[in-house]
């Protein structure tokens, strides 16, 4: 039995949530469906840890679906690169599932809870599948599975606030346009090379030089993925989708959804195409780099003027995605590794911040704006402390995970002779202190409503504590994340240079 599990791990991390989502939809008891979801995400997490171990034993695992050998069959590839997002997604989804137990029934009609959990697992399966698959078209399928499931989840927010529906609609339309653009790109590349397997594709692309269809295909793919990854200025679906989704869904999406797409972006840029190619160099330098810098500032400035806290955090996510793409755009091994470090750390930070805010809105049963934050920190000390720690982590204050990622991004940019980039990064993170501080000040120093009599619920704050602890832990002992990320970038770029 263990053999079978070990052998089939790459597919198990995908089909475990996928199959369970079909079972959960049939369960009429809400609590039971939560228990099944929880155990599924837990098992998936265990599987992904086992995968981590396996990957470091064998450097990379290729799994041929249906025993059809690649490049003809669909191949699932787990290497040191893809394991990073897999761990992120499975870890965060497990923690958020614990968190959702109390939050979900407060916002969703009890008749649709099992459906929500089914979609929840489907979204997770889609995201993990997106990362695992080594086939360009299969990737599209998972892209759509995850985004359709996420759209449906966001639309569930419409039960409480009608804006959730519009958010879901925008997400759907833009997501579909993005996915279709990606498919056009894949089609063009398939037309030129005759293969869909990503590894094979990269080999054949290397043999072709100067083909206009190749450039067009590359452009379509990148734009499509950039829509999904919410890279500025293709981010407009994101703030609303995160802000008006049901609270637990916001946490899940904020921490994981864009991460998988960012990973795909890196994979296409560095692994499918050749980093030393002028096409890629120009794209990085003249497209992604300026856009990332704009994203850093636009996101932060929008966040500063935003009054609705969930939207504020979503705007800040755009800025943080900017950091990650910026790191990719610099294009050295160290910078890509830094991008992966921030990918991981940002998932932890944003997950925790959304968790803290949603638990506050759960306790006072209102949408959180900057005005009704007043004095809440005193009423719910545990949530507040976690919120402060993770805010510090977001701002990149030492001894937190956020500091480590910022340190490496800056170091990479200085090493690549981009001290002005480093200054811009730091300027934008100093600006981010403004909105974080605004919230903390309101939470602690402003006078709030009296007699709230809030009793913090352990099922709500324990996941928050776990994720906050991880934020501190990975700030104090970052070697695991740092080493894995460096291995990942080595594998991604090493073959090329």
């Amino acid at each position, binding site marked *: 039995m263990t053999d079978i599990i070990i052998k089939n791990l790459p597919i198990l991390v995908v089909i475990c949530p996928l199959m369970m989502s079909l079972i959960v939809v049939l369960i009429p008891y809400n609590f039971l469906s939560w228990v099944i979801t929880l155990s599924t995400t837990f098992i998936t997490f265990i599987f992904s840890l086992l995968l981590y171990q396996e990957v470091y034993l064998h450097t990379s695992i290729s799994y041929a679906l*249906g025993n059809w050998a690649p490049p003809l069959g669909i191949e699932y590839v787990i290497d040191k690169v893809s394991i990073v997002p897999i761990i992120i997604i499975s870890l965060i989804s497990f923690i958020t599932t614990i968190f959702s137990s109390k939050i979900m029934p407060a916002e969703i009609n009890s008749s649709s809870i099992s459906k929500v959990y089914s979609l929840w697992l489907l979204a997770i399966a889609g995201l993990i599948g997106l990362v695992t698959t080594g086939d360009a078209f299969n990737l599209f399928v998972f892209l759509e599975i995850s985004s359709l499931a996420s759209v449906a989840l966001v639309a569930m927010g419409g039960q409480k606030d009608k804006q959730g529906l519009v958010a879901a609609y925008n997400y759907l339309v833009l997501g579909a346009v993005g996915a279709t653009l990606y498919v056009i790109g894949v089609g063009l590349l398939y037309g030129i090379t005759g293969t869909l397997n990503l590894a094979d594709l990269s080999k054949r692309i290397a043999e072709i030089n100067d083909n206009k269809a190749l450039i067009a295909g590359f452009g379509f793919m990148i734009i499509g993925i950039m829509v999904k990854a919410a890279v500025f200025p293709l981010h407009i679906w994101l703030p609303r989708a995160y802000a008006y989704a049901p609270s637990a869904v916001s946490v899940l999406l904020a921490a994981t959804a864009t991460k998988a797409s960012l990973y795909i972006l890196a994979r296409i840029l560095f692994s499918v195409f050749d980093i030393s190619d002028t096409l890629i160099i120009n794209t990085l330098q003249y497209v992604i780099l300026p856009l990332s810098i704009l994203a850093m500032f636009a996101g932060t400035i929008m966040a500063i003027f935003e009054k609705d806290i969930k939207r504020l955090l979503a705007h800040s996510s755009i800025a943080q995605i900017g950091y990650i793409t910026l790191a990719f755009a610099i294009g050295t091994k160290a910078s890509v590794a830094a991008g992966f470090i921030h990918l991981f750390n940002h998932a932890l930070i944003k997950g925790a911040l959304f968790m803290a805010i949603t638990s506050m809105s759960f306790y006072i049963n209102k949408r959180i704006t900057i005005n009704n934050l007043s004095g809440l920190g005193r009423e719910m000390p545990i949530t507040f402390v976690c919120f402060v720690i993770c805010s510090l982590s977001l701002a990149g204050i030492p001894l937190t995970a956020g500091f480590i990622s910022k340190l490496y991004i800056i170091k990479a940019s200085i090493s690549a002779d981009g001290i002005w980039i480093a200054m811009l990064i730091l300027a934008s993170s100093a600006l981010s202190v403004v909105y974080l501080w605004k919230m903390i000040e309101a939470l602690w120093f402003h006078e709030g409503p009296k007699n709230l009599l809030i009793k913090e619920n352990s099922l709500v704050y324990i996941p928050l504590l776990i994720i906050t602890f991880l934020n501190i832990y990975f700030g104090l002992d970052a070697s695991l994340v740092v080493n894995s990320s460096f291995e990942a970038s080595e594998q991604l770029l090493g073959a090329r240079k």
Partner: protein
Amino acid sequence: MDKNPILRIATKILFAPIILFGLYVQFHGDFGPGGGFQAGVIFASAFILYAIVFGLEKGKELFPLNINLFLLALGGILYGGVGIASMLLGEEFLSYNVLGTSNQAGQHIGILLVEFGVGLTVSNVMIALFYAFADFKRSGETK
């Protein structure tokens, strides 16, 4: 609409052949054009036609929502189940070869079951979509 005899009788006559045709497309998929997707849609069209002509309530009596949901999930589970079965038999996910005594027999069994699962899911998704949209109009009006 149930006062219109032509439609009613035509529906009653057509209902069985549609399903039969669906089954044909489903099971002939191994040897010629066809398969689960197409068959599923054809299958669903029979029930949708019935519900259009006789009304949504009657349609739901014929094909209740919970059965619809159950079959929908069942199709997917069947698909995945085949994959898991091949996995338990020591091969990769969805390797049909090990399912039968010979490779060819295994392929046959595998593709049949998988296509059946696809057919089930597609037809039920179609019906579910129809129910959802049709039902929505009603609940909107009662508001």
